[in-house]
């Protein structure tokens, strides 16, 4: 946990002068610089990391964004773009000597084209607002991160956000046609096109998920897809987590691509049941939620096929939603897993690794061992269909040692994901949170290549720096403290 250190007088003076220069340059554009105003921007969804910025600019036009970036380039002031600030990895954490560029005022839906099935929106438009605007035409925007009620499309582009329906409908990168953005030198660039592709290298593909480090998004064209006529969900119980994992593999091997395929372990099920009272099977070691969507006939066919697979996979109980209300009730527990975790413990730390599906059981076994090792509880919910795990480590943030152990526990889980052939982040991004774990997943040469790619878009090195990609020096430092295969740095010291 970081806090702004008390600065020496000369340093305070220098910062005050810089703020004055920025205020003068940003005339006509809202610029917050008093601590009481900027404090609201000191962190994002990863509240354990905080940093006050020099100031916060809230432009309303693309021309203002261009101007702000030109001024910052000239004065060598780092810039952190920000949408709704729901990022869970510290992607919008301010930089001490930099400003935050909030796109909160870019909240207009510029055009909705029902025939062409596209929506042109400003980056501050909320994810869910797009689907709401498209609903009268029977269309929606498919990626649905769990923060969709609050998170903005600009942030989704930065993080390549996922959600519950990725297996069938894809990630942000599969649902964005075009991005308009401003580079640090104030140039307007357009990646992608309204046609099926654009000439040259696929810059749109590498731009999405670049964590706000390449350019500042000012407009996004998203793809809209027809809303399925109906959806039905199967809730299946398993008396063994590994068997549940095998059922997931069996469903997919049977040629079924469910609209959603989610799993909760026993402790998570008990936690959410206490919270939502949805009638979950409390005796189950794992609960699987499997959703089919499409036309009535399609759904009936897929549900029948899926039930046959689940029965053959040893499910101990199978329920199928018989109404929309029941479908939402079956989902309510999974969707409320995070607040339910919040009731179990003062704080929880949400992880986001992805592994090949066949290793789900192995990873859960390893996490159970780690619970003993770090003396912290962990409950598991995950997007089983794409192997994206969200272990929630329960801890008390007022106890510095518990937070420290939670961080080590988290890093240990992520490194296990890499060891099992997976990745340290499936959809939350690296940000500042998982930057050390990047040292484990990528070689020094690969990290050098990432820096060079960043340089191709931002040669000035001023946009959201020091996130996502660790320097060689940082990895060398991390290597010295490295927690490997559950070995704490000083295993002989008592920890609790």
């Amino acid at each position, binding site marked *: 946990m970081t806090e702004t250190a008390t600065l020496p007088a000369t340093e305070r003076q220098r910062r005050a002068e810089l703020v004055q220069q920025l205020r003068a340059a940003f005339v006509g554009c809202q610029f917050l610089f008093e601590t009481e105003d900027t404090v609201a921007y000191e962190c994002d969804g990863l509240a354990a990391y905080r940093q006050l910025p020099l100031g916060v600019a809230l432009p309303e036009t693309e021309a203002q964004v261009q101007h702000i970036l030109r001024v910052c380039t000239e004065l060598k002031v780092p810039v952190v773009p920000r949408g709704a600030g729901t990022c869970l990895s510290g992607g919008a954490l301010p930089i001490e000597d930099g400003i935050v560029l909030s796109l909160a005022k870019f909240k207009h839906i510029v055009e909705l084209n029902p025939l062409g099935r596209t929506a042109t929106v400003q980056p501050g438009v909320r994810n869910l607002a797009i689907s709401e605007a498209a609903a009268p035409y029977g269309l929606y925007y498919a990626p649905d991160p769990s923060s969709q009620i609050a998170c903005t499309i600009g942030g989704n582009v930065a993080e390549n956000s996922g959600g519950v329906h990725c297996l069938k409908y894809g990630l942000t990168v599969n649902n964005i046609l075009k991005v308009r953005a401003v580079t640090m030198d104030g140039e307007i660039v357009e990646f992608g096109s*309204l046609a099926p592709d654009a*000439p040259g290298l696929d810059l749109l593909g590498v731009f999405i998920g670049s964590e706000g480090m390449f350019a500042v998004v000012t407009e996004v064209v998203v793809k809209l897809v027809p809303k399925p006529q109906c959806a039905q969900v199967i809730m299946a119980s398993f008396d063994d987590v590994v068997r549940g994992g095998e059922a997931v593999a069996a469903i997919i091997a049977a040629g079924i691509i469910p609209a959603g395929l989610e799993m909760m372990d026993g402790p998570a099920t008990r936690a959410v049941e206490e919270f939502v009272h949805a009638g979950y099977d409390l005796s189950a070691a794992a609960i699987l939620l499997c959703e089919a969507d499409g036309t009535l006939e399609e759904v009936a066919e897929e549900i029948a096929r899926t039930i046959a697979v689940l029965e053959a996979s040893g499910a101990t109980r199978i329920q199928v939603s018989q109404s929309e209300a029941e479908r939402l009730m079956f989902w309510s527990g999974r969707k409320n897993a995070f607040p339910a975790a919040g009731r179990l413990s003062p704080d929880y730390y949400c992880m986001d690794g992805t592994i090949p599906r066949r290793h789900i059981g192995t990873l859960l076994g390893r996490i159970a061992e780690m619970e003993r090792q770090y003396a912290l509880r962990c409950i598991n919910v995950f997007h089983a*269909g794409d192997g994206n795990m969200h272990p929630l480590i329960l801890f008390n943030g007022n106890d510095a040692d518990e937070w420290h152990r939670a961080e080590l526990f988290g890093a240990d889980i992520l490194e296990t994901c890499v060891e099992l052939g997976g990745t340290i982040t499936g*959809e939350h991004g690296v940000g500042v949170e998982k930057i050390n774990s990047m040292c484990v*997943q990528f070689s020094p040469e690969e*990290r050098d290549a*990432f820096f060079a790619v960043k340089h191709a878009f931002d040669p000035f090195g001023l946009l959201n720096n020091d996130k996502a990609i660790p320097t060689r020096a940082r990895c060398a430092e991390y290597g010295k403290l490295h927690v490997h295969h559950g070995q704490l740095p000083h295993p002989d010291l008592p920890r609790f």
Partner: protein
Amino acid sequence: MIDMLDSFRATVERATRDQTPLQIVGSGSKHWYGEAPQGELLDTRGHAGIVAYDPAELVITARCGTPLADIEATLAEQGQMLAFEPPHFGPAATLGGCVAAGLSGPRRQAAGALRDFILGVQLLDGQGRVLNFGGQVMKNVAGYDVARLLPGSLGTLGLILEVSLKVLPKPFAEATLRFELSEAEALTRLNQWGGQPLPISASTWQDGVLYLRLSGAEAAVAGACGKLGGERIADADCAVLWQGLREQTAPFFAGRAESAPLWRLALPSTAQPVALPGAQLIEWGGGQRWWRSDAPAEQIRALAERLGGHATLWRGGDRSVGVFAPLAAPLMQIQRRLKATFDPAGVFNPGRLYPAL
């Protein structure tokens, strides 16, 4: 499996040292695509084989020299497929060439393009470094998504050693419907249908006839056939039709080799009917429009741009006008910096995409 890495690395390091261009080639099935290839041949075919494939993971990992046909046969044994339906353009087409060309077939309008199925890539760069980007899992946002830069890069960024692709189950049922419709009517219908939950997986229009392919659950295909009307054509004819479009062996593409140049116009699906001298074939719900036309390149390019898309000089014609539509200056600058990152000496397929790359 023979590992060619050491030999590749020696070739690349020598080329970088001597600043001599290399022409990366698989079977050569797409040698005609893009700007003219140049440089010493670097044959990828020795580096072949499927590295990993577990149907339940929906991922296949294979080396660059693996024949595309082998990959498709392996997937078909498990009832799976490459959903972007890549064109082979030759019996021995390789996976590396498929990814470097970045082309997708008839199913692209419904399932997505090749770039949507790339999960990970192993690349040998100009300094002889082996770099891994992405991975073998569906959801992965660790590091920049560099793997997605490779489809369509035409080998200009490095030698693709290995690729991981997402695969999908083959549909349980398929049917093709035939409609007699004018171009304007066909485009309107295609866009209207695109907004409805219908299992349309491919479409093509030519000379007043629209063909529509439906793929999905049996009930969904049967239901859509009933709803859409049209005339259902025999299964054997369907296979010939869509295969002929994918491989461009259909008469429109194959029969007029010595005639007017072939242009590919990628447009928003709602773009109005294009008026050019010559013959037209439409695919991808209106998004891909092929023209055999003698119209001047500037006219075709300006028209495509005005409609919100771009035009590629696919086959034939005067190649001096540039095969691919010119890029805006800031985009070209970024692409040149990316090229310099992975290939500082400019040895990989120089000029194949743009003279400056």
